[in-house]
């Protein structure tokens, strides 16, 4: 595969086919956990790991599975994978599990995982599918962290509160507290999540339109100057 194709995978994952901002998938976990930047980051990272492994497994068995039964097979595969990750973390990474445990179970109902299996991994090789998982996962993580940070800042007046619990004490510098700001509770509650997502979507559309207009204007400018 060429470098261009690799670039394409990451461009799709992070921007053009972003799980939340373009495909509008996985909105249930998105709304549920983005009450703080730390939560968004944790959910994003946990999903990324599952996404990469599930993409690889699906790509591996893609020739064996017939198209008629592929959906139930993928669902069983993903549910098994998530359950094993959940049990393994509970057993051996218990401190991290107490912070992330809530999110792991939510990954099962994350249609982004099944979506990538259906849309990409079933048609592509193991390694590019893994790359696609990384790219999509990072895009998902970035989206969740961004929504979480905005809601947290407006709602509670903090940034990355309790990040050191998730990432370790050396990341305590991330935690910011806005002095003398009580916070607008609405932003932490579900309506705030929808409002922030709405504004971000509108912003992305606007930016995409501007970029498209500029791209369309460029060749004409070339002609005019010639």
């Amino acid at each position, binding site marked *: 595969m060429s470098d261009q194709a690799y670039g394409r995978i990451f461009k799709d994952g992070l921007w053009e086919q972003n799980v939340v901002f373009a495909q509008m998938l996985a909105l249930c976990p998105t709304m549920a956990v983005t009450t703080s930047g730390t939560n968004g980051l944790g959910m994003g990272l946990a999903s990324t790991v599952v996404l990469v492994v599930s993409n690889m497994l699906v790509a591996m068995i893609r020739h064996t599975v017939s198209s008629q039964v592929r959906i139930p097979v993928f669902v069983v595969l993903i549910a098994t994978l998530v359950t094993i990750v959940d049990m393994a973390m509970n057993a051996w990474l218990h401190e991290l599990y107490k912070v992330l445990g809530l999110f792991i179970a939510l990954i099962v109902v994350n249609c982004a995982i099944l979506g990538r299996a259906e849309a990409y991994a079933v048609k592509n090789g193991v390694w590019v599918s893994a790359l696609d998982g990384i790219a999509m996962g990072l895009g998902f993580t970035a989206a969740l962290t961004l929504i979480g940070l905005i809601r947290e800042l407006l709602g509670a007046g903090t940034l990355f509160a309790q990040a050191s619990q998730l990432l370790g004490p050396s990341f305590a510098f991330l935690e910011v507290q806005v002095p003398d700001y009580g916070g607008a509770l609405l932003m*932490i509650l579900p309506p705030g999540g929808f409002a922030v997502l709405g504004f971000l979507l509108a912003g992305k559309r606007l930016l995409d339109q501007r970029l498209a207009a500029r791209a369309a204007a460029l060749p004409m400018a070339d002609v005019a100057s010639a």
Partner: protein
Amino acid sequence: MMLESIREKMAYQPLLLGIVALLASAALALASGATGAAIAAAEAKDLRDSLSEVLPAGLADNDFLSDTVDLEKDGKTVTIYRARQGGAMTAALFKVSERGYAGEIQVLMAVDMSGRILGVRVLKHSETPGLGDKIEVRKTPWVLDFAGKALGEPAAELWAVKKDNGVFEQFAGATVTPRAVVKAVKGGLAFFAAHQREISA
């Protein structure tokens, strides 16, 4: 290709599904077996940690996790952990719960043998973040106020939040949550008083 031709056969689909389900169950059984002991140990450590948090130091030299008695409270089984010092019982630790604003609030409390509260912590709740979650000790020290109180100290009618003419603070915008915690703790004390004989037996 061989695979292509059998893949479309009718029998292939259920067979494949069956094999996948079988492999998945086998993987889960293996994982469950491999992690079971470690999970149980981690959960026991969690319980010990939270129990030690409500129990002041120097009150127990026994393994109170295994010195328990099960009693009935409102149709539910409550496990009471008994702390002992030199064989004599010093405190009873147990969980109580009460409906808060958004679901059950689980409270862990330690009571000494005279019925005085040694410590109270909220274990689990789903109250509104930013309002009701002030009952968590890592958010505000509100829950520490319970230590030293007992039934009758303050008097029964003062076992309420200030809005209900009691002695306990409430939070601006969230009265239901502290009210539920106060009720849970008061109920726990009454439960201890009613069953003291069975608990210390």
